[in-house]
């Protein structure tokens, strides 16, 4: 039993009770977390109390869900993988997604490790824990939601939530061999998510099946007056999309996503997944997204710029780290931030401050915003031709730990296939499509990505459900 659907069936049939289910999870946390490092913390007693009161009549009644450690849950830590918030911050409220999970009956338990403030693609930038890939402990789980992916892939949890700013749900899902979905921008409230880059961030599910991802999005989606970017448009019944099939759909394969830099073994698996859809009646169309190559540069201007602004709230005054070495107010800001932030966060704050500084603003920031318009336009034009777009999720399998320690650009460039969906606000899913041999007696999972027009989250589930069946 590894899906929410299966666990719910067992609970409703009386084959399992909620407290037993939670206790099984806690036992797995105790047993596996010392080696996977997927969780930063968990509160066993609180989870047992919640399980004892579980209401099975609700859609997620009694089902445990792990949260990435940047999503607030009342009374729990919310460290963002940072020393800055390791001490001196306990969430004083529930994020909207946390509240919705609780209202749906879920047991919110476990705080998943992550790259500090969600900045990274390997979870190696966490200041608080080391997470490894459950398929090969010498390799990265991906990131920044690496803990959220590893808990699900290792069987420690049935499902989790992560956040995705440039691929941070889909890339770790691909690297860990599970399903990860980034909803359309505006589909899910970010109230209570610690902000990284506000024009890009979305919260989404990491699960063992496309059906579970649809189940979770159904619960967490919708308008929220507490997030002015959440859209006031109806949420369709995503479960209906799962059985529609792909006959008659036009699916675009952008040639820039199958170009130099893509591992040939990954290309083979992704093309095989596409061919399976073709056999089921979809039409494959080669499309052109010429600005793809510019997406990484655009992202690494816009995301650090927004981050440098968002992270100015961490000043040592209201919560978290306050330096005891400081002399005066300005020095308190400077030293608290110097002591509390790790290297990647400092790099991105510096980069963001630089591109926003007077004299450079137009050359970098405004120009990147214009290229973002070009990227959006290309997707709009592509969606006049095709219903959805299919690509690899990552150009390479998960790399070995610490291979990019001194060369952050190496990891930035590997985000090339996931970043555009954030820049254009599109829904996108990564679904497992096979594995490659690592050469070290391990099999490394590979993901295939589907992107669809804004607010067509239903379509990524519809196609994702058929891709999933290509493997099993």
């Amino acid at each position: 039993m590894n899906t929410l659907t299966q666990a719910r069936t067992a609970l409703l049939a009386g084959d399992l009770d909620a407290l037993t289910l939670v206790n099984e999870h806690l036992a797995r946390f105790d047993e596996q977390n010392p080696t996977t490092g997927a969780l930063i913390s968990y509160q066993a007693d609180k989870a047992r109390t919640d399980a004892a009161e579980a209401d099975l009549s609700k859609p997620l009644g009694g089902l445990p869900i792990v949260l990435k450690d940047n999503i607030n849950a009342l009374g729990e830590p919310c460290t963002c993988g940072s020393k800055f918030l390791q001490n001196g911050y306990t969430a004083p409220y529930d994020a909207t997604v946390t509240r919705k999970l609780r209202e749906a009956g879920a047991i919110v338990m476990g705080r998943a490790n992550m790259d500090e403030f969600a900045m990274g693609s390997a979870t190696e930038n966490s200041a608080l824990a080391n997470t490894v890939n459950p398929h090969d402990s010498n390799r990265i789980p991906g990131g920044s939601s690496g803990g959220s992916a590893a808990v699900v892939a290792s069987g420690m949890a049935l499902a989790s939530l992560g956040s995705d700013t440039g691929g941070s749900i889909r890339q770790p899902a691909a690297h860990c061999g599970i399903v990860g979905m980034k909803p359309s921008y505006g589909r899910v409230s970010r109230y209570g998510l610690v902000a990284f880059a506000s024009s890009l961030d979305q919260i989404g599910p990491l699960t063992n099946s496309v059906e579970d991802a649809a189940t979770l999005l159904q619960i967490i989606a919708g308008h929220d007056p507490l997030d002015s970017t959440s859209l006031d448009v109806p949420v369709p019944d995503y479960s209906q999309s799962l059985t529609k099939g792909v006959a008659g759909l036009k699916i675009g394969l952008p040639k820039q996503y199958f170009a130099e830099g893509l591992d040939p073994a990954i290309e083979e698996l992704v093309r095989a997944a596409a061919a399976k859809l073709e056999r089921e009646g979809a039409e494959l169309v080669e499309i052109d997204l010429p600005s793809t190559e510019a997406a990484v540069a655009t992202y690494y201007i816009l995301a650090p710029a927004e981050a440098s602004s968002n992270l100015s709230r961490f000043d040592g005054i209201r919560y978290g780290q306050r330096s005891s070495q400081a002399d005066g107010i300005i020095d308190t800001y400077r030293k608290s931030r110097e002591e509390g932030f790790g290297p990647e966060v400092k790099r991105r704050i510096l980069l963001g401050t630089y591109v926003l500084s007077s004299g450079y603003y137009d050359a970098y920031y405004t120009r990147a915003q214009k290229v973002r318009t070009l990227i959006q336009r290309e997707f709009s034009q592509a969606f006049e031709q095709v219903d959805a777009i299919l690509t690899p999720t990552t150009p390479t399998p998960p790399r070995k730990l610490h291979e990019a320690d001194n060369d952050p650009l190496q990891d930035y460039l590997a985000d090339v296939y996931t970043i555009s969906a954030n820049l254009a606000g599109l829904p996108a899913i990564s679904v497992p499509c096979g594995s490659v041999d690592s050469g070290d007696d391990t099999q490394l999972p590979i993901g295939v990505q589907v992107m669809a027009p804004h607010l067509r989250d239903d379509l990524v589930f519809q196609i994702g459900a058929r891709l999933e069946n290509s493997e099993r």
Partner: protein
Amino acid sequence: MPKLTLKKDFQSRTEALETRVPDQQIALKRIAELARLDLSADELATFENQLTPILKHIDTLSTLDVEGVEPTAHPTPVYDVLRADESRPGLAPEAVLQNAPESAQEQIRVPKVVDAS
């Protein structure tokens, strides 16, 4: 290729303080000041080495033609969302103060902001 240098007027303050370090390092130090980061000399050197190739990469955007293109700040067209002007519950003082590094008299205690001299 972009260098981590700023226009003269932005350098003046730090230049006066750090006349002996090379230009690029002065500029990064100035950026760190703007970002309120008290970086060590080692960090300044490391970050400069790491940021230079990153800036070189992001500068590839300068080759694209964006003449007449409107900038996009936000992926969906949402403007000026207002809520009703009605009072609603907020966090209780104790919920906020539990996280404050220092507090006194139901307020967050901060270092002195205004110098009396």
